[in-house]
């Protein structure tokens, strides 16, 4: 409190000194320059620390240019003009941002100058571009960041041994996997809140784990094995995790980071930012950093213009498609690769340099993708020279760069590659021109990677002109599903890579006609699939069992935009995100299409299941469990029953309580109503009031004589 008093005092004094009437100042209209706190420390320590990341001393946008010619006073202007010309090409120099100190004894310049830019990014770029710039033979610029001077000056002269910190055992980051009820977690983002919850399918409700407002500035993402939750901030990315609550485990400084991507084994984190150039002729500047997730160290950084990172060999593609780097090599995050003009650059993570120090040269390469399990690249090269050179799809082994298999394709308009999750099969969807070149039709080339010589099979749909709307492999399986045909009601077909007797042939299992579906969602354990009609189909869902070839349930989550299976394949979440204005929120379904519960949240942005790492059980053990499922499931079924009994018991109890409570109100009201009856009558001028009492059901019998007639009957 004393501090604050002092501060107010000094503010008053300062204001009086400057002749400002404080009462006439609108404090809300004052905007401090970003990053400058004018020495006023924020109370929030966290914010203060994070601010620190970016602005060490407030001179981040200043560079020092050394090795300038030493000139007398009359030539100052000329030299300044030259320097200004060089440096204003790179960025906007602040007003009075160029300063050349003068030796007061000789009146000559000292041979260096300071240049202040608007942003640290510009300063850094200027340093990069003009360090070693040759003004003439004897004046080669040496450019440094002003902050670096500061930093190096501070280095103590004597070496002191680094303090060895005592070892503190870390938290068990896998704690969530040993939940007694074997539940799964998910994260949702709605409004400004980000929340992690358990999915309690038995209790038909979510169970909160951790909630935090303004946790991230753009989005959140789980690491691929579920260990970390990554958040994105202005200053960089951060990962969170831990045994009970979500603590910050590591920060990765990267100003204005836009996108992040984990390597599949979550060893590395790739961050990406793009910076508007101050010169409109230039392309956006792109910075990509590769961090080690556990140490937070930058393993490698890539800088360049957006053009360098635009994917698609033929050029003309604007913007960068994410992720720029695709990880491959299976288990150990060994390789990552990106595509460039006529090259594919493959890096390995031991040294973070190109394999064999050079990129893979492939003329006109359009697209590539890694096998999910093996270090094999599949790449696609389109037709060249007006059809003289056929298009081709090749498989390349890394690191040997040996071509395993190649397939030439003719009159191709486009190709798309789909790997099966075990890397057993590769499907290539090929769009070909018809003879007239006016339209296209689609076929599939199916590669059997694990078999000798990698046999290729061609699959064409029965109706060749059908458009392919969606394609999806069964995870870990040998089947795939295709949605084909023309809107509004396309067909869905299922194929298997094995036929009954012949394991080496693809065969069709079935075709479902006229489905309202445009997206396929296989259960992560295979067997079950959701045929979903998103967008135009308003959220139609069909839960289909591919083993039995039967529909288990059809349902609708109106306007659903996202569908995600939980990592165990037990539950499905469907969500309406804030692309729609109404009915934001999510539904949780069982695998067979039973709606378990629904939660409505306004401004709903994200729903993500927490991934699970692969099982440690051997395939033999898994098979054994599958065989003796009855034995294992007994325990869980009993638990299920207990819970459902308890639930219905609780439900009944709750209803009884509500009814009782209501009765109490009603009785009270009746009493009051009765008490006030007289007064109310008075208000109505004595008119007997209170409708109900007035009504008396009387039975009135009315007899009416209608006609009397006499007749003479004769007896014969």
């Amino acid at each position: 409190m004393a501090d604050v008093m002092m501060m107010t005092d000094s503010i008053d004094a300062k204001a009086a000194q400057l002749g400002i009437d404080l009462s006439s100042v609108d404090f809300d209209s004052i905007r401090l320059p970003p990053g400058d706190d004018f020495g006023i420390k924020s109370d929030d320590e966290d914010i203060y620390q994070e601010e620190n990341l970016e602005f060490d001393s407030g001179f981040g946008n200043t560079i020092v240019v050394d090795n300038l010619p030493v000139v007398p006073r009359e030539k100052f202007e000329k030299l300044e003009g030259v320097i200004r010309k060089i440096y204003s090409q790179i960025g906007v120099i602040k007003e009075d941002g160029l300063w050349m100190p003068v030796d007061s004894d000789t009146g000559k310049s000292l041979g260096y100058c300071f240049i202040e830019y608007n942003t640290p990014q510009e300063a850094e770029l200027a340093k990069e571009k003009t360090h070693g710039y040759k003004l003439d033979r004897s004046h080669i610029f040496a450019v440094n960041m002003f902050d670096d001077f500061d930093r190096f000056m501070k280095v103590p002269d004597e070496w002191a041994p680094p303090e060895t910190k005592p070892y503190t055992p870390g938290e068990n980051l896998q704690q969530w996997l040993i939940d007694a009820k074997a539940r799964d977690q998910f994260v949702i983002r709605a409004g400004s809140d980000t929340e992690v919850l358990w999915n309690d399918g038995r209790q038909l409700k979510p169970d909160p784990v951790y909630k935090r407002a303004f946790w991230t500035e753009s989005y959140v993402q789980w690491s691929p094995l579920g260990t970390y939750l990554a958040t994105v901030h202005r200053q960089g990315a951060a990962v969170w995790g831990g045994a009970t609550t979500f603590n910050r485990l590591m920060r990765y400084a990267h100003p204005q980071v836009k996108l992040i991507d984990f390597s599949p084994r979550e060893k590395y984190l790739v961050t990406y930012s793009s910076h508007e150039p101050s010169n409109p002729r230039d392309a956006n500047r792109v910075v990509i950093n590769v961090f080690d997730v556990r140490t937070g160290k930058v393993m490698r950084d890539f800088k360049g213009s957006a053009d360098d990172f635009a994917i698609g060999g033929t050029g003309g593609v604007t913007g960068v498609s994410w992720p720029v780097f695709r990880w491959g090599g299976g288990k150990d995050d060994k390789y990552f690769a990106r595509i460039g003009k006529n090259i594919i650059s493959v890096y390995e993570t031991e040294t973070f340099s190109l394999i064999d120090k050079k990129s893979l040269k492939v003329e006109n390469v359009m697209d590539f993708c890694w096998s999910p399990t093996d270090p094999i690249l599949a790449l696609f090269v389109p037709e060249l020279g007006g059809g003289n050179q056929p298009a081709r799809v090749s498989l390349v082994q890394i690191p040997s760069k040996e071509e395993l298999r190649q397939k030439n394709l003719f009159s191709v308009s486009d190709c798309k590659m789909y790997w099966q999750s075990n890397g057993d099969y590769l499907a290539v969807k090929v769009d070909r021109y018809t003879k007239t070149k006016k339209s296209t039709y689609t076929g599939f080339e199916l590669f059997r990677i694990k078999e000798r010589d990698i046999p290729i099979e061609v699959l064409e749909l029965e109706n060749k002109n059908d458009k392919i709307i969606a394609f999806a492999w069964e995870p870990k399986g040998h089947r795939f599903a295709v949605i084909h045909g023309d809107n509004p009601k396309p067909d869905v077909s299922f194929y298997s890579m094995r036929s009954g007797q012949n394991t080496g042939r693809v065969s069709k299992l079935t075709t479902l006609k006229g489905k309202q579906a445009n997206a396929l969602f296989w259960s992560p354990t295979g067997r079950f699939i959701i045929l979903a009609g998103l967008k135009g189909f308003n959220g139609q869902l069909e839960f289909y069992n591919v083993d039995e070839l039967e529909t288990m349930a059809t349902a609708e989550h109106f306007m659903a935009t996202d569908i995600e299976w939980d990592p165990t394949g037990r539950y499905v979440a469907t969500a309406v995100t804030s692309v729609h204005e109404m009915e934001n929120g999510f539904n949780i379904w069982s695998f067979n299409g039973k709606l378990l519960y629904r939660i409505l949240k306004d401004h709903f942005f994200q729903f993500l299941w927490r991934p699970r790492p692969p099982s440690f059980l051997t395939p033999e053990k898994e098979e054994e469990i599958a065989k003796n499922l009855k034995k294992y499931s007994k325990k869980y079924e009993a638990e299920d029953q207990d819970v459902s009994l308890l639930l219905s018991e609780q439900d009944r109890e709750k209803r009884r309580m509500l009814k009782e409570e209501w009765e109490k109100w009603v009785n009270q009201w009746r009493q009051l109503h009765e008490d006030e009856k007289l007064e109310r009558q008075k208000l109505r001028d004595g008119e007997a009031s209170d409708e109900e009492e007035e009504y008396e059901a009387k039975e009135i019998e009315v007899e009416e004589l209608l006609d009397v007639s006499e007749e003479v009957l004769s007896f014969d």
Partner: protein
Amino acid sequence: MKGPLTFLKYNRDGDLLFSCAKDHNPTVWFADNGERLGTYRGHNGAVWCCDVSRDSMRLITGSADQTAKLWNVQTGQQLYTFNFDSPARAVDFSVGDKLAVITTDPFMELTSAIHVKRIARDSSDQSGESVLVIRGPHGRINRAVWGPLNKTIISAGEDAVIRIWDSESGKLLKESDKESGHKKTITALSKSADGSHFLTGSLDKSAKLWDTRTLTLIKTYVTERPVNAVAMSPLIDHVVLGGGQDASAVTTTDHRAGKFEAKFFDKILQEEIGGVKGHFGPINALAFNPDGKSFSSGGEDGYVRLHHFDPDYFNIKI
């Protein structure tokens, strides 16, 4: 009807239904078959609200033309016009029909206000003088009704707060709790048949049930769209909510997108029971027939729909 509906009211016997709409003429219908009986001509602006006296002789209407008018229900004759400086919004007869509460919108410099007028038995003695004027609450007041024995006035509106005023002195007695109360504009308020509790609907996509005397929150009904209209069945423990997205935000894709159904909730368990479809725009008005065997809904689409319940409805058990 020619314009979006704004309000619906049954008379006590439940044989007449009065409707107000943005066209200028309140209309009376046979509640049974929906045949039009007549219109009340004279307003020069949208009509926001109406109330009918216990003996079904007098109708009072509040309109955007800055007047509230008294009508002879049978002849359609204008009996008296109350003039204001801003649009009249809500009207409500007191128990005994000797007083009426009329609210006016904030307009130019004026804040919203609640006026209490004495209603003369003989319309030739009628005067425009206010017995009481309460000024103050921010934003528009969408509904104001009498509390038990005319001792209080309950108001609710744009500022999402429900207020109970002393009808003698105009003193503020109670305000709804910020925490448990509505978060957005309250659009509708409906009293129970005995006046012991009332239901409010709000753009915050919920409806809440309150005790009239203590302003205790009893129940909350959560739905997925803004609530424009509410009604309580006098017969069964059911409540009906009507609404839908804002008329300006209605897309042309699918009528289901707007959620224009009238939704039925169990009054006690707060669970959704079902919905009644029909309107092509948001529902702005709902009313139950006092016998509880039918209800009517009025929509932005300009239709009044009369719904008679199947016999099965009265046997619903949960």
